[in-house]
Each structure stands twice: as structure tokens, then as C-alpha cells.
């Protein structure tokens, strides 16, 4: 696969960035940078900045760098050099043109996937450094339009998709009705206080992919777990504010999520197949609020399926025949180490798993995560061109027989669909739940 890399236009118009820049002064830029550097970052930033020896070993870790013909501007250290180091070196005295470039790099050329941190001899986390840049650009009002609009949706409705309060329970009741034609007494129990599990999903599920809720309801019912879903805001575990740098809003969204689980007196939260949402409830949002760990334990769908299959509560009627490969999502594999549990589940469901290479914690990112896909259509080609390496990885595993690509993460799914389509891979991309629903024993 030797398709030449398409050069992306240097300046992509973006209403969020351009209108934001028009309002800025260099004094405000300087004050804001200094405020974040001096007031909001601590030893971690200092150590990273002082430790980096500019060796470039991290470069090979980054799919953008590899896909953009090893252009050093796309290397992890190169991204820091073009953003944060310069801000530090100039003590915040950078101009608007610099800030424009900084927001584009931090928001659309880094997925915060943390793959590069594994290649750095000092474990320097460039994703964290990019999050500092995003924090600065948030405070300066420079966040790209589409992801900013998503943060606005979170702020109003506590979900990612402008779903109104009535539309949520209405959708669940509709899915419950549909599923009853398959399992007559099936329930999606709403507001059942004292259930063992609260099941939470991300906004796109009720909006565009209600069949995933249907499938989850069938899995929950067949497994016989005591579960519930809230009928109020707090049902959406996603969090784009985490990726825009609006930490205050991230905290607000996570507080609603956890207090909803607390109100329902559940012992755990099981969440659908989403990676960034897992990061927001397991690491970022909970910790910003002062919780070391989630106050109600959170289990990603992979862990839940693993437990259900191991305990024999879900049995497989007939394994999925088409050979599959498995894409390890950054947030639940590098972020939580679920790769072996995922393989247990995939092997239980499918006849043949063919590993892509690299895999597990070394897998390449989908290039959609970290809020990049949420920056919308203007940047679509940046991430598709920026992940040619993923296409190559998938062509290689396809050549070895894999036809279905399993990706247990919403962002990965969408990003991989774009890659699938653009590079002509022609693989079937599925969630674990899609296959599990298909192959499990049902009454």
C-alpha cells in the first residue's frame, strides 16, 4: 500500500479558532500562559520539561509521525517543541500566529494516546503536555468549533449529543419494546434503586446507535444481572470537556454521573464500549473532583463480558466463523490493561483471532481519539492521512486472513470506519457486543 500522503492545507478555517484569535491580545495570551504554567501545573510539567534530552526516541511511537513520512513536525517531541517549550522559553510572550498553530497541533494532531510515552526512556507523557496546551487554548477561547459545540451540549444537557431529558427514557422504552419481540419479558429497568449495576453509555448510542442499547439489554437480561439505567441526566459517561481543557466542566459532568450512581445505590457502574469515557470516569474526571478512584467502581464492557462468560452466565451458542482481528483501544489497554481479558472474550466468541502487529499496549491508535474526531469535518483528512500506518497494519492482518475488525471503543470505531473506507480495506468493523449478541445462547 503505497498511496502517497496527501498534504493537508496549512491553514484550515475554523470558526472556533479564528473568532477566538480575533478577540485576543498578546498580553492576554501571555497572562493566560503564565497563569496555567505557574498556577495550574506542578512538578510533573517541570520534570518533563527538564528531563527531555530531545533524543527523538519517542518519534517512532507516534502514528502521525510514521504516517506523515517521518516529518519531525509530527513527532511527539516536535509537537512539544512547536507549542509548550516555546511558550515556556518565551515566558508566554508568543503571538497569535503561534497560538493558532499551537491549538491545531494540540487539538488535531495528537490523540493523547500515550503510545509515545512507552518509547521515551524517561516515560515522558507528551499527551499530558498536549493537555496543558489544550487547557491554555481553552482559557484563551481558541478551541475548535465542533468539539467546543460538543462541550456546550455537555454543559446544557449533561450529554454529548444535545439529547433532551425526555428523549433519553423515551428511547430506552422504545428499545425495550423492540427487544420484547425477541425476549418477551425483557426489561430495561429505569431508576431501579438498589440494583447491583448501573449501565451507562455515551450520547451517540441513543442518538444514532440505539441497537447497541438493545443488544446490551438482551445481554443483561440473559445474564440475569440486577441492573438499572437512570432516567435522568447522569446516564452519559462521555466527556469532551476533558479534551477541550475545560476541567471545571469535566468535573461537573463526572459529578452528575457518579452522584446519579450514588442516588441509585448501585454497587458498580458498567459502561458500554467506549474508551475516552472510561478515561474520564476512571482517571481524569474523578481525580479532578478529589476522588482517587471512582467512588462507585467502574467496569468497562470488556471486563463485564469477561466476568459474564467466565461465570457461565453468558454461553456461546455458535462461535463467530469469520476470522477476526482485534484493535486494542488506548484508553482501556494502555490506560487499564484490559488486553488479555479482551482476548479471552474474543476467543470465547470467535473461531479465529488473528493478531494485528503491533498489538496489545503497542497497538497503533485509531487516530480518532483524544477529541480529534470531535474537532469535526475540517480535520477529517488530517487524521485519515495521519494514520496511513494503521491502514498498513490492517492490510497486513487482512492479508493473513482477518475479515472482521473488532474495536471495543466508539471513537476507534468511527476512526477505523473512515480508514476502512478511505483506504479501501473492506473489513467488517464490529463492537464486541455486536458479536456477543449474535453468538450467545438466548432463551
Amino acid at each position, binding site marked *: 500500500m503505497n498511496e502517497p500522503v496527501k498534504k493537508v492545507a496549512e491553514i484550515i478555517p475554523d470558526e472556533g479558532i479564528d473568532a477566538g484569535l480575533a478577540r485576543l491580545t498578546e498580553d492576554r495570551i501571555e497572562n493566560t500562559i503564565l497563569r496555567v504554567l505557574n498556577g495550574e501545573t506542578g512538578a510533573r510539567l517541570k520534570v518533563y520539561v527538564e528531563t527531555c534530552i530531545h533524543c527523538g526516541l519517542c518519534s517512532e511511537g507516534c502514528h502521525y509521525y510514521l504516517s506523515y513520512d517521518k516529518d519531525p513536525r509530527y513527532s511527539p517531541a516536535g509537537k512539544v517543541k512547536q507549542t509548550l517549550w516555546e511558550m515556556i522559553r518565551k515566558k508566554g510572550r508568543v503571538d497569535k500566529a503561534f497560538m493558532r498553530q499551537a491549538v491545531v497541533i494540540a487539538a488535531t494532531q495528537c490523540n493523547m494516546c500515550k503510545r509515545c510515552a512507552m518509547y521515551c526512556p524517561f516515560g515522558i507523557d507528551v499527551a499530558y503536555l498536549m493537555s496543558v496546551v489544550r487547557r491554555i487554548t481553552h482559557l484563551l477561547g481558541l478551541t475548535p468549533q465542533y468539539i467546543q459545540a460538543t462541550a456546550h451540549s455537555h454543559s446544557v444537557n449533561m450529554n454529548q449529543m444535545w439529547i433532551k431529558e425526555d428523549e433519553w427514557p423515551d428511547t430506552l422504552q422504545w428499545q425495550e419494546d423492540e427487544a420484547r419481540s425477541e425476549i418477551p419479558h425483557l426489561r430495561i429497568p429505569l431508576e431501579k434503586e438498589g440494583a447491583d449495576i448501573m449501565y451507562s453509555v455515551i450520547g451517540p448510542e441513543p442518538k444514532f446507535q440505539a441497537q447497541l442499547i438493545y443488544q446490551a439489554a438482551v445481554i443483561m437480561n440473559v445474564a440475569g444481572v440486577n441492573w438499572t439505567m437512570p432516567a435522568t441526566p447522569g446516564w452519559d459517561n462521555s466527556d469532551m470537556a476533558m479534551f477541550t481543557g475545560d476541567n*471545571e466542566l469535566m468535573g461537573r459532568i463526572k459529578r452528575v454521573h457518579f452522584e446519579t450512581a450514588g442516588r441509585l445505590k448501585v454497587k458498580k457502574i458498567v459502561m458500554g464500549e467506549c474508551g475516552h469515557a472510561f478515561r474520564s470516569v476512571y482517571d481524569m474526571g474523578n481525580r479532578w473532583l*478529589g476522588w482517587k478512584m471512582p467512588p462507585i467502581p467502574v467496569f468497562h464492557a470488556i471486563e463485564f463480558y469477561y466476568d459474564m462468560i467466565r461465570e457461565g452466565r453468558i454461553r456461546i451458542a455458535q462461535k463467530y466463523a469469520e476470522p477476526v482481528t482485534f484493535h486494542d483501544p488506548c484508553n482501556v489497554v494502555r490506560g487499564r490493561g484490559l488486553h488479555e481479558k479482551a482476548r479471552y472474550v474474543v476467543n470465547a466468541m470467535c473461531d479465529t483471532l488473528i493478531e494485528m502487529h503491533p498489538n496489545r499496549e503497542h497497538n497503533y491508535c485509531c487516530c480518532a481519539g483524544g477529541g480529534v474526531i470531535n474537532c469535526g469535518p475540517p480535520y477529517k483528512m488530517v487524521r485519515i492521512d495521519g494514520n496511513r500506518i494503521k491502514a498498513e497494519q490492517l492490510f497486513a492482518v487482512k492479508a493473513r486472513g482477518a475479515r472482521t475488525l473488532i474495536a471495543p471503543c466508539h471513537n476507534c470505531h468511527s476512526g477505523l470506519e473512515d480508514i476502512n473506507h478511505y483506504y479501501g480495506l473492506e473489513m467488517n468493523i464490529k463492537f464486541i457486543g455486536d458479536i456477543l449478541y449474535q453468538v450467545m445462547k438466548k432463551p
Partner: protein
Amino acid sequence: MADTIAWDWQTGEKSIPVGNSNSRFEWVEEPYVSYDGERVASIVNIAEGEFTVCVNGQTWENPFEKIWHLRFTADDRLTALVSDAGEWTLAVDGVSWENRFGYVWNPLFSQDGRSIAVSFQQDRQYGMALNDVPWEETYGNLTDPVLSPDGNHTAASVQVIPTGEVEIRKFQQGTISAAKDGVVWDRPFVNVWRKAMNLNGDLAAEVRLTLYDYTIAVNGSPWEKTFGGVWEPIFHPISGAVIAPVRVKGKWYLAEEGRLLWSTPFDQLWHPVVSPDGKCIVAIVATGFGKWTVAVDGRAWRHVFSDFVTDMTFSSDSRKIAVIVKDKERWSIAVQGTAWNNTFDMIWKPVFSPDGAHVAAKVERGGKYTMALDDRLWRQDCEAAWDPLFSPDGTRLLVKTIEDGTYFRRVIPVGEFG
């Protein structure tokens, strides 16, 4: 809460079979029990697309196409959200409200149970209905609804300026306001979130003036000072002042009318509560990362809990505070800063005896439920249980449980807890 004096505190045990109803219906949903313990009710399915409610073995007179959110009010009327012919409303003891809507959800009950409010959607317009009276004005969106504690007023955040989903500049100029009894404040904000109302019907809410400036607005007027964050406001019941947690330089403080009331900085501070006598203010706080506890007038309890602190309750004499604590993955109760020795898989909101001498709670261990009183456990393990309640003289506990398919209402002397 209803007057408990008139309840039956004499009969030691009453029972109602509930297990056998399974054979009468297609399926039976989880049971709900009245506060006085005299009635046990479930939503039941009688045929495809036909539901009713079964209360003590008797079904409601008319079935509905759909029923959900079955709840007793504090004065023990049985309510549910019901739908017929594609329209939704609220039913009380089987009788529907006269008004019907495209959808209704989130029923709110006043403390005495006499008022019921719901959020409604009709023809893509949103409002609230209080005791079957809908707002005259409706809006393009509605969030964070509240009912005043006396049940006389409703309020919610509403969209006042229609905005496209990606119109970020327009949104940041302010498109959201608050409406009380359907009447909107005279200015919009970027966001309006949690609210409080007092007995005069004043409305206070968390607002965001820009993406960065948070404050509290009272009847539409924001405090002069803005903060890096705010949480839910409350009205002081005696002074009338508005009190709310505010974030300054990354730390949380309690503020009153925009000025810092507590000088102690906390890593987190929320759920402020004024004691019933109005003499002290308490809040749930984090004194450090993963160090949760309660602060009384700005001073944190000595003991901190690693995971979670929630459901704070005052004794009616204002002298004691009990709260749910979760420490190292186990749930318990802390009273006046000291946690019980017993820990549980789950625990429900603590309940004080009227004189404040005892604290009781529903608890769960190994999938079974029982009662705990002052850190001592009741002998019986049950399939289901509801929050306990003390007799007016504090000597007995009303315990409501299900065991082996039978619902039991028991009046147990406090002394039985050893």
C-alpha cells in the same frame, strides 16, 4: 414527611403475600412500599402492551399501555407515569391527571407529599406541571427542574434563545435562563444549573456568565463576584442569605452572598446543609486527594474516608450529623465523625430517632438486606427491605421487608437490637 402518630405502632407484625402474584400476571416488577408500611405495590404486566399496578393484591381499575416510575408520596399516595394512546401523564392511585402530554418524566414531590411536579414535553416544547397545572409558557429545552420544599413553586433551566448545535458564539453570548412557575428571568446566561428555592419563592441557581466565570444568580441577578466554579446554592432558613460552595485558585470555600464565609480551603466542598435550628452549616468536603469527610462551620471532622461521603442527615434537635461513608471499598455510617465498626456491601440513608439518640439504616451484605441500629444488626436477613422509621416516641422501629415471598410490616422495640 407525614405525621407518623396516627400510624399503627401497636401491631407487632402484619404480612401480605407477594410471591403468588407472579402466577396472576405475565410479569411483576420490583415492589414499592408505602411509608406507613401498610401497602406494597408493583407495576404488573397483564397482556401485551397492557400494564397495571397491583397494590396489596388489588389492581388499579384501568390498565395503561405503559407504566413506569412507581413511587409513594410522603403522604402515601401511589403515583406513576402512565401512557395511553401515545400520550403521557401522571396517575395518582390509579386516577390520571386531566392534562396529557407528549412525554412526562422526573416526578418531584414536596416534603409533605401533597405537591407533585413533573417535567413535560408537548409538541417539542418543554415545561413543568404542578399538581396537574402546566406552565403557561413553554420552552425549547428544559433541564435541572426543582420543586420548592413547600410544594408551591416549580423552576427549571430553560432555553430562551434558539441556537443551532454548532453556533458556538451565539451560545456563549447566553441562550439559557431559569423559569419559575413558567415565568423566565429577564436575562440569559451561558448556563444555569442546580437551584434552590425558599419559602418566599425566591430562586437561586448556579450560573456560568462566560465559559470561565461562575457565580450564583438570585432571581436572575448574579452575585457581583465571579469564581472558578460554584456548586449548588442553599437559602439559610433563618437569615435568608444565599450560601454556596465557590472555587478560588483551585480550592473550594463556602461563600455567602458572594463573600467567603469559611476561610478554610478544601480540595472539594459540596452539599452544604444548614442545621434545623439554623445555628450551624455543614458540608461534605475533601481535605485532600481521596480524603473525604464532613466539615462543620468550616472545621473538618478528624476522620477522613477514602472513597465517598454522601447522604448527610441532621438529627431534628440539630445536635448530631449522620452520613454514609465509603472507606476502602466498604460502606458504613459515620455519626459525629466516628464510623460504625460494621461495614456493608451497600447502605442507605441514615435515619435519626426523633430525640436524636439512635441512628438506623437499611444495609446490604452478601445479597441480603437487614437493618442496622447504632452499629448493631437486626437478626433477620431479607430478600428486600425499605428504609426504617422510628415511632414518634423513639422506642420502636418500623421495619418493612420481604422474606420468602411475603411482605412483612413489623414494629420492633429498639431494645431488640441488643
